[in-house]
């Protein structure tokens, strides 16, 4: 059993100082004597098998769960307050979801909605910035759409080519509509 004073030390905010080390006789490395050493295990080592299996049982939810899920309270129905939007909601979460999807990253000029701030910024720059076209003639201005990629291109077509070849994007990526295309981005709906 662990001595009670040590258990108490665990819940104390103060550090537990170690005693002065006992005198040590150096091991001269004679044949047959034990030499202590550290052991390192790689992630695929059999030593980790039981723990790994336990982790995967948890992942597959065979184990009983941790924590409980709270119930979301219903509220009386209300409308979205954004201009031109009349959707009705009965939970705050469904309104939040709607707001984040449709009203969070919206272009103030043309009301188009984007899934991320980066895509909105790219859109504003390319569609509504009067200096963009002039600058684009001199330097590469079309930013890559992928998070973490800093490449810029001369034209939207070159960017599209980059997205397909380097990032394995689909050729019809929905959030990469060049300005000349007057069709609404979400034309399916």
């Amino acid at each position, binding site marked *: 059993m662990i001595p009670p004073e040590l*258990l108490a030390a665990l819940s104390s905010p103060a550090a537990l100082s170690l005693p002065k080390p006992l005198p040590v006789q150096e091991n001269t490395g004679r044949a047959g004597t034990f030499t202590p*050493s550290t052991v390192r295990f790689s992630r695929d080592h059999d030593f980790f098998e039981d723990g790994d299996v336990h982790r995967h049982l948890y992942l597959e939810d065979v184990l009983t769960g941790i924590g409980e899920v709270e119930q979301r309270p219903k509220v009386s129905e209300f409308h979205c307050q954004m201009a031109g939007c009349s959707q009705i909601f009965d939970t705050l979460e469904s309104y939040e979801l709607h707001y984040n999807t449709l009203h969070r990253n919206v272009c103030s000029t043309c009301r188009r909605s984007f899934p991320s701030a980066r895509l909105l910024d790219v859109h504003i720059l390319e569609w509504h910035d009067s200096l963009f076209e002039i600058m684009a003639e001199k330097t590469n201005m079309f930013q890559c759409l992928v998070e973490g990629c800093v490449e810029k291109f001369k034209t939207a077509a070159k960017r599209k080519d980059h997205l397909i070849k380097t990032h394995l994007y689909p050729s019809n990526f929905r959030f990469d509509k060049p300005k000349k295309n007057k069709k609404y981005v979400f034309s399916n709906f």
Partner: protein
Amino acid sequence: MWCASKRIKKSQLTLEDLRVQRREREKALRKARREQHLTSKRLLRDQTDEEAFLGGNLSQHLLSEQQVLQRIRDIQHGSDEKLKHLTVLRHALRNRVTQLLFIRAEGSMQFLIGLFTCQFARIQMEAARCLHELSHSNDPAVSKACLPATSYLVTFLSGSSAELMELCLYTLGNLSVESEAARHQLLLQGIIPAFSMCLQSPYVTVLEATGYALSQLLQAKEAPQSIVPTVLEAGLTQDILKLLLSDFGESFGMMIEFAWCLHYIISSQVNNVVLISQGTVPKLVHMLTKLTTSPYLGVSGSELLICPLVRCLGNLLTEVDGANKRAIQEDGRVIVALFFFIQKFQQEHLFVIQECLWTLNNMTAKDPIICSAVLHFKLIPVFLQLLGHSRDIVLLVSLSLLTVFLNHLHKIMGHTPVLCA
């Protein structure tokens, strides 16, 4: 209400059913691990919806090819009831045969991706749930059919909707275990920088899902070569350590995921010098000490957090110099904490004991200060108690490590008999 399916299964099955199910799964997982393809997927489902589903007639979800096509047409044409028809399709997609019929129907995946990228939040979420159901399939053809959606799944991680991000992350985590090609595609599409953004999320659900998706990627065969270096370069480990050191609160599940991420990174042995320079050893020491007094230690599943943290410390101790061991020498509570875990889990989770003993070995080897502390703190009886354990494996491990330990103590002249008494 979306949650992991475990909470539902618990209420549907008897204890004996659960035991049988667990034994079978355990056997399959051990076999998979030995064959080096240990992968698992996680499924989120709507709880109320699930209960209604299980209470209904299951056969109605087995559809013919014609019926699958009809479901797709219903969604395309039913403008007012698009959402309702999409939910019907989602229920149908729980069936393996229906999944195959669906992905083989011409243009079906493009259609689903179209709905997933539309701006109607509820339709988008429902389409995301359909994709999630498909991503959970064990059939490689079904997972492969989902790959055209990954550019959008990754894009939405930079969005603001926590609910959608969570679902995208679990779907990506499921898809990433399927093939090296899938992981290669995700890396090219910027999943690591996207994770970096997700790690800043204030939502615990998003953080837990990020930990899950990252841990899935990190378990890949090629992770030491192509994934761990990118993760280290992007500085994700610093964010992970910060989250692990945060208050436990409601974030126990999240911490489990990140602790496993850290274990996969460290045990890949790619560049642990970086991790050591980020102060990982003193941070692990602090976390393990703090866990001994956490109310969550009493919760079933706490071993899932302790195990990877102990592993991280055990492995890093093989690479640290004296300066990094100072954290242990200055505060001996972590030594006591390891004994505390040994005592706590000796009835239920033997692997925790095994791993704590190994970490103790690495802590004491070549370190007379820590060795002396173990003696001085009178912790030897905890070792001796383990020798009486009935399980062969623990007996072997504790015997071998005790041998290591006693050999070590032998050097401390004249004190062993007194302190062991």
